[in-house]
């Protein structure tokens, strides 16, 4: 009963924040609504005992992706009017997508109603059962080979990103830390001996 109440509470907040993402006029508000949506969906995942996914969602999406997203939104000067220009003209495309999505949702629900066991329900596990430990075990035994190689894929991404973007531009203003540290008083301040001037 409590779980159901919690589910509906979180689901309501999720729907509300999802609407907020698309309805708010300020892009920063949209991004913040999206953060809220991620938090509430993480809570929903906790309810179905997928605690690892819930934590990862908060850490990766809220902690890393959305912060980056907010940076971009705040740094770019987005002309909202320009973005909204084609809205009504392309609305039919949106409606088409909505129709397809609704049809798919109905399809999924209808299949459940037909009684065909497409997906078997998970076997309930004890309260002290740790999803994270299980994932870790599988990841470092059965899937150790693809796991390590996925790490190499990330290494490729890092190397490629650096090599393709880092460049020594002419006339770039850079700090030379060594020169800053090695500087002496004589380089910065010049003491000049001069006669005291008499006030007129």
């Amino acid at each position, binding site marked *: 009963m409590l779980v159901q109440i919690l589910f509906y509470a979180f689901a309501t907040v999720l729907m509300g924040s999802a609407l907020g993402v698309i309805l708010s006029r300020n892009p920063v508000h949209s991004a913040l609504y999206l953060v809220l949506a991620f938090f509430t969906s993480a809570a929903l995942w906790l309810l179905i005992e997928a605690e690892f996914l819930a934590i990862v969602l908060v850490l990766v999406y809220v902690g890393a992706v959305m912060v980056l997203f907010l940076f971009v939104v705040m740094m770019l000067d987005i002309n909202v009017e320009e973005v909204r220009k084609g809205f009504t003209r392309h609305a039919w495309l949106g409606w088409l997508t909505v129709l397809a999505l609704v049809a798919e949702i109905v399809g999924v629900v209808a299949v459940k109603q037909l009684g065909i066991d497409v997906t078997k329900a998970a076997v309930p596990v004890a309260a002290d059962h740790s999803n994270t430990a299980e994932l870790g075990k599988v990841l470092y*035994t*059965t*899937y*150790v*080979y*693809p796991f*390590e*190689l*996925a790490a*190499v*894929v990330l*290494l*490729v*991404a890092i*190397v*490629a990103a*650096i*090599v*393709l973007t880092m*460049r020594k531009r002419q006339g770039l203003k850079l700090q030379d830390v060594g020169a800053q540290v090695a500087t002496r008083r004589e380089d910065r301040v010049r003491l000049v001996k001069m006669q005291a001037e008499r006030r007129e």
Partner: protein
Amino acid sequence: MTETSFAQFLPALPEIYLVGAICALLMFDVFFGLKKPTRTASVALLLLLGGAVATLISADFGHRQVLFSGMYIADDLATLLKLASFLFVAIALFYSGEFLGRRKLQQGEYYVLVFTALLGVLVLTSAGSLLMVYIGVELLSLSLYALVAFDRENGVAAEAAMKYFVLGAIASGIMLYGMSLLYGLSGTLSLAGLATAFSGPNSLGLILGLAFLVVAVAFKFGAVPFHMWVPDVYQGAPTSVSLLVASVPKIASFAVAYRLLAEGLGEVSGTWTQMLSVLAVLSLLFGNLIAIAQTNLRRMLAYSAISNVGFILLGFVTGTGDGYEAALYFTLVYVMVVLGTFGAILLASREGFEADEIADYKGLSSRDPSLAFMVAVLMFSTAGIPPFVGFWAKLRIIESLVNVGHLWLSIIAVVMSVIGAFYYLRIVWVMYFDPPGDLPRGQPRLALRFVLGLNAAAALGLGLFPDVLLNVCQTVLHRG
């Protein structure tokens, strides 16, 4: 939980070694390579030779071992392809050393990206699961995208890289979708599992999933109609990168096609051989016909690659061990010859003279007789003129086609290779019978010339004794 020991992972030594080598090379470049990039180049070559040794140490000839819960297959085919990949990449790096130095591209990261691409190839040669196929393809393609864009000042290269990247990403998506369909139908990612799951009658879902997979494989091969990226990449990328894209990834594509289609879905070969035969005929047709119209040598080689891919696919169309063997033979021979051809472009090029237009080869026989002779040998071999090795490769493919009764396909293959011979021989004509004009004379570069000579000699030698490599191919595919 069973006891684990390092000896258990010995068959995977080539990959483990290469990952170590990648990290070592990154560190070496930071500490010793920044001032003198040629050092990193030499170390990279040594590491590659070490990789070939590691492959030989870990090889267990005549046995098939399965590691990492079925995700890694170590057999003779994997050993042969890994040895060939290490060797071919080493030759490619050797050919491109001077070019990279001249174009100021000789940074440590170049070699690191080449190594990661090679790692992708190695992973694909021993892929035992759809997951590994995907990760291998991503490793290989991501490294190649970055390499194509490596020369940042060059707008054409950036355009080529962008096209390659966008189309490649779409192909990866298509591949994943096909894999997800197959997984949904069979409930397993392992190729051995797929083989048992799909031994019954064909379902519509299987054909759908298979179609997506075949499209993705065709894209990686560069077969018509999924070839759009090939000419732009061959022409736009730095020559050393074109050399790389043209050579070793073909081995990987063969490995993917073999592991995925022949081993994993061999039971349902009736469905995919039809798809492949359409791709093969289109590739032969468009590749050869469009190549005739090219004035840029690298673009011509791109279309030639497309037509040669058609031949490799024809080997798979047979759906028999005989055909796979012919395809393996053709792939190895083709990669070897194409390495030499691009090596010749690199040898002919110099500061301010890229030597990638066909007109740049006018009268090469009087300007640089030995280079002209080597190019002629390589062109004769690609054209498939006896006694060069390319002839035997084409012959084996056509033979295996006729054996299973694909008469029409073999006729198309023969007609198309006759048409193809025209534009290969045109290069020879230009080199020997056109006046040189005021084009520059050849440069000595003896080491490069020597290795290129060996490469051309191999094209002739393997042609005179075709059974040597053919027997190897036969043995690794267990038909002894």
